[in-house]
């Protein structure tokens, strides 16, 4: 069952390269439905029988590559499949006016999915490297799809930053192989110690992955790339692509070499996260372009994920578990909310014909559903109840309290208010009465996609138990 999730996207990617324009769009949705069914089936299997490994080519770990599927992996797989379907439906309608880009969007889309699934499932360090490269290339390709000057410039900066990050990661892999002689994460985890090569390797890989996750000092490439790209592309990038490198970072720090990472280093990561929240929100507040505001909001929200490290390394088991649950919920809620926000902003820009926040006047009357989706996703981003974002914020607050680290507690609270500051800037203007310019009609399906994702972010607030149980973090799940 596990390899199916790798085979489906690759096969559909190949067909998308081969076939001319019309059939590509036809095969897109069935393929994605197939993928969602496969990931749900795997989730049920994992929920019932616990984590399972899969040896590719039949070879055991030191020599061959094993895929590892546990609760967290499966949650991410289902998240990817769900967001991919909604973004695909949006893209089918949205790209009708971009005839050329449509031809090359779908192959890159499928390769992106193949690499994401590969990363979630992989249990081998070098395999993660190749997966990251495939992910970066497809993402850069999608950013540069329109071929306009700003998007090319953004794509180049994104590619250079990502390549630098991958080399840092590869250098770390080289050192780990030098010390342990194997590339399998499970094997290294058993025999990992806090010797110099491991620590330096983890440091190098961390810097590389921070660059790829665009965490605060290294976030320069994200806003132009996510802000300038087509709406479905920025939704996919902000919701999923940046999370892949964070997932690997968490894998390294918490599974691969827990003793090699000192709590002081974890506090540093937390400080970077706090910096991301403050700086990202401040920049988002000062943006005059709607999509850039949402892109900087991604930079800010990624900061919350960094709190996983200070709250779970060097703290009590209960605090660590709360931190882990909070981070997972934040990852899910942010994926839904940010994808919904980018899609709704895409519809607004289509209707308005421009992206400046100043004259969003009259939007609430002419494009109400898009604005409503923007509102719902904003509720989750601000961490206001009832939303997934709120539950995540709550868990992180509790974990900060339990582990006595009140400074993260303050940052999380203030972060919510700062998000509110820049989000309500958009609302304030959209309620202004005199609509000076006319509105282009937009397809109703665009709003439906944005609303589905926004509703998912809100609904997550009520059903947070499902993903947590699925990850066997909460008693109730088996295995």
């Amino acid at each position: 069952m596990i390899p199916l999730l790798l085979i489906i996207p690759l096969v559909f990617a190949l067909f998308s390269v081969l076939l001319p324009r019309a059939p590509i769009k036809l095969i897109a949705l069935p393929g994605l439905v197939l993928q969602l069914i496969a990931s749900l089936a795997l989730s049920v299997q994992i929920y019932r029988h616990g984590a399972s490994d899969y040896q590719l080519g039949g070879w055991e770990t030191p020599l061959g590559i094993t895929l590892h599927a546990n609760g967290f992996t499966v949650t991410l797989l289902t998240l990817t499949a769900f967001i991919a379907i909604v973004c695909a439906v949006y893209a089918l309608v949205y790209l009708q006016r971009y005839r050329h880009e449509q031809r090359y969007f779908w192959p890159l889309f499928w390769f992106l999915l193949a690499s994401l699934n590969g990363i979630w499932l992989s249990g081998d360090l070098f395999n993660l490297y190749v997966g990251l490269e495939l992910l970066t290339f497809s993402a850069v390709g999608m950013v540069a799809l329109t071929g306009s000057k700003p998007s090319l410039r953004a794509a180049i900066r994104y590619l250079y930053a990502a390549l630098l990050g991958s080399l840092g990661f590869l250098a770390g892999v080289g050192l780990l192989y030098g010390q342990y002689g194997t590339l399998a994460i499970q094997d290294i985890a058993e025999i990992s110690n806090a010797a110099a090569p491991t620590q330096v390797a983890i440091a190098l890989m961390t810097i590389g992955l921070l660059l790829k996750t665009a965490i605060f000092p290294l976030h320069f490439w994200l806003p132009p790339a996510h802000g300038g790209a087509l709406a479905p592309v920025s939704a996919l990038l902000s919701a999923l692509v940046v999370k892949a490198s964070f997932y690997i970072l968490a894998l390294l720090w918490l599974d691969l070499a827990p003793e090699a990472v000192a709590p002081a280093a974890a506090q540093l990561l937390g400080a970077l996260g706090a910096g991301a929240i403050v700086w990202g929100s401040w920049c988002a507040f000062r943006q005059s372009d709607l999509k850039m505001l949402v892109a900087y909001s991604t930079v800010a929200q990624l900061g919350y994920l960094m709190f996983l490290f200070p709250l779970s390394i060097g703290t009590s088991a209960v605090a660590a578990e709360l931190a882990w649950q909070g981070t997972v919920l934040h990852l899910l809620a942010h994926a839904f909310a940010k994808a919904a926000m980018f899609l709704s902003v895409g519809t607004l820009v289509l209707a308005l014909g421009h992206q400046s926040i100043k004259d969003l006047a009259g939007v609430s009357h002419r494009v109400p559903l898009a604005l409503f989706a923007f509102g719902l996703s904003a509720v989750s981003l601000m961490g206001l109840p009832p939303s997934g974002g709120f539950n995540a914020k709550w868990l992180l607050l509790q974990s900060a309290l339990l582990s006595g680290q009140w400074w993260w507690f303050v940052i999380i609270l203030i972060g919510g208010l700062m998000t509110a500051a820049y989000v309500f800037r958009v609302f304030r203007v959209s309620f202004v009465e005199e609509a000076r310019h006319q509105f282009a009609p937009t397809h109703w399906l665009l709003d439906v996609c944005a609303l589905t994702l926004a509703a998912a972010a809100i609904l997550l607030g009520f059903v947070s138990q499902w993903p947590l149980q699925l990850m066997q973090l909460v008693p109730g799940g088996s295995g």
Partner: protein
Amino acid sequence: MWFDVILGIGLIVAAVGVFRSDELFRSVVFFVTFGILLALTWLRLQAPDLALAEAAIGAGLTGVLLLDTLGVLKRPAAVKFNLAKHALATIVALGAAAGLAWSFWTLLQLPAPTYNLVETLAANIDDSGVSHGITAVLLNFRSYDTLLEVAVLLVAIVIGLSLRQSLRQSLRHDDAQSDGDETVTGATTSPEQQAPALLKSLVHLLVPLLLITAIFVLWAGSTRPGGAFQAGALIAAAGVLARLGNIDIASRVNLLLRTGLTIGVFIFLLVAVSPMLTGYAFLAYPPGWAGVLIILIELMLTISIGLILLSLFIHAPREKRNGGSS
């Protein structure tokens, strides 16, 4: 022993040469010399495959792409000294240097790694279908990496094609062709006009020779250093040479080219999935069939890689000179 020291120093000098020279052409030349020195280094590290690959792909093809790009680039703007960037670079570089030195120093003291893949590989080599270690790893033990790697190449060329098209798209003068199957050709000098006699004869001599070596390298891959990637690079080199000699190949982006590009991954996936129907794992070869299937996959991969690397050269975005083919 002294040769290694000199070679090492040579590598560093070449690298510094690349960065010190302010004229881009000189940097590229230094870079190609660096590539060749690196090929020698791989020989000293008993890695003939890598030497072959580095020479063909690293120094050869990258060099060609770089030189071709130099033609397009305008004069780079004057470089103004930015203290902050230098300071940041020194800090980062020193940090990395210290970390690496410290880890290298400790590695020397540490006992041998617990896992010794050399023995495990030797134990499993005979039922991997090939006798050459690297091909066994690439196409059997860690074949998933290779699958993803060719997918990476495929993505690179897909982006190349997408960016090439949109330039023509914005020029708005051949809309008719854009919706159906793109048959718009790469814009290079029209064939049979300006090829100088010396180049023509060189091409007629070298291209067949390159193709034969490529086939040999491909075939040798299962027993001796060689394999799909090196053979693919040689085919690409032959193609580039033919292009420069104005022989029009693979210039039309049509279904044929696209099948050529994807055939490698397609067959690889087909071979990887079909045993699953009879209960084997994904990417597992049914016993006894491994050798034959690996050769089949390598053949297809060579075609694909050759075409991809060639297309990356041909279809790179360039100005439209004297009417070209549109």
